[in-house]
């Protein structure tokens, strides 16, 4: 029997990092790989979610529809996967609740793979989110969805070129008709099982920023090595991201609180 569990919107008071999946209501039993669906609003994440899981999570065209994340599962090649439909976000800089839910999940629950769904008809405006997600994790697959719409508008997407430019696997799909979904799952499965290792071409910042990042990163590594992407956290701290400071300070481990203060000093 398939069931869908709605998770509470994760706000800063309900999270606080202990950097694990239980916090995100993930029973770790069964060890199913966890795959997250991220993307700008209105790119067809929920349609893709439904097509893959066979569930009927509500789809519709208005902002903030998926504030709660929905969870389901699917099988591919004899392996069972958990799939999480994250709310639509333009960015992971966490201005709105939706964006914060998406960011916390990718950053702290650390899914085994993230599928970033982008709209083939306006690819350019979707790519900034891809760049942000690949700054957090390298296990990213880009799903160029609505490829049928794009074709109708005479837009040709060169998936190979995009893949080379980003250093990530790219699969074109039309979730509504099911086109490309098998290929998408093949690629995702290979990323999850380590048979395909994306090498994202990450943004290099100007020298003075890079220097500051490595200084901060060295300090963060002493506390959260292996638990967090320290480069990404360092960048957020340099930006003066208050939420991120609160998160780090909210870590239950007191030794870490002291360390945060030191890091920020």
């Amino acid at each position, binding site marked *: 029997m398939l069931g869908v569990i709605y998770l509470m919107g994760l706000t800063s008071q309900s999270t606080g990092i202990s950097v694990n999946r239980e916090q995100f209501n993930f029973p770790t039993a069964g060890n199913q790989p966890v795959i997250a669906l991220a993307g700008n609003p209105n790119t067809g994440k929920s349609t893709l979610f439904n097509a893959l899981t066979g569930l009927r999570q509500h789809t519709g065209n208005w902002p903030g529809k998926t504030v709660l994340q929905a969870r389901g599962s699917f099988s591919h090649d004899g392996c069972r996967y958990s799939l999480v439909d994250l709310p639509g976000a*333009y960015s992971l800089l966490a201005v709105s609740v939706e964006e914060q839910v998406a960011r916390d999940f990718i950053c702290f629950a650390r899914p085994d793979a993230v599928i970033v769904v982008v709209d083939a008809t306006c690819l350019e405006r979707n790519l900034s989110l891809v760049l942000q997600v690949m700054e957090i994790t390298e296990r990213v697959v880009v799903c160029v969805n609505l490829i049928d719409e794009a074709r109708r508008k005479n837009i040709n997407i060169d998936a190979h070129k995009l893949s080379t430019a980003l250093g990530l696997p790219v699969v074109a799909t039309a979730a509504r008709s099911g086109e490309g979904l098998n290929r998408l799952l093949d690629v995702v499965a290979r990323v999850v099982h380590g048979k395909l290792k994306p090498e994202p071409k990450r943004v290099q910042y100007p020298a003075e920023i890079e220097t500051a990042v490595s200084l901060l990163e060295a300090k963060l590594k002493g506390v959260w090595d292996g638990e967090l992407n320290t480069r990404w956290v360092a960048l957020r701290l340099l930006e003066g991201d208050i939420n991120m400071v609160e998160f780090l300070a909210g870590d239950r481990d007191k030794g870490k609180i002291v360390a945060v203060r030191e890091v920020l000093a």
Partner: protein
Amino acid sequence: MSGSTTLNTVLAGEHVLVTRINTGGSGSKRLLDLGLVPGTRVEVVRRSPLGDPVAYNIRGAVIALRQEESSQVLVNKIL
């Protein structure tokens, strides 16, 4: 001639290039996330009946901005 006018003063049907975002902090982050980075071409699509908000075509998506947001965006008109 950088940022000769602000986006809220541009008339429907006109095209502009973004030169700068004025606010600091999360307000400007939001605008940047929507694709309003310097060098972006923006088309003013139409004004709502009361004049605010206004719909803009930004990188392939039509997005409505309020006066308080669009007045922070410095632009040059494309002739």
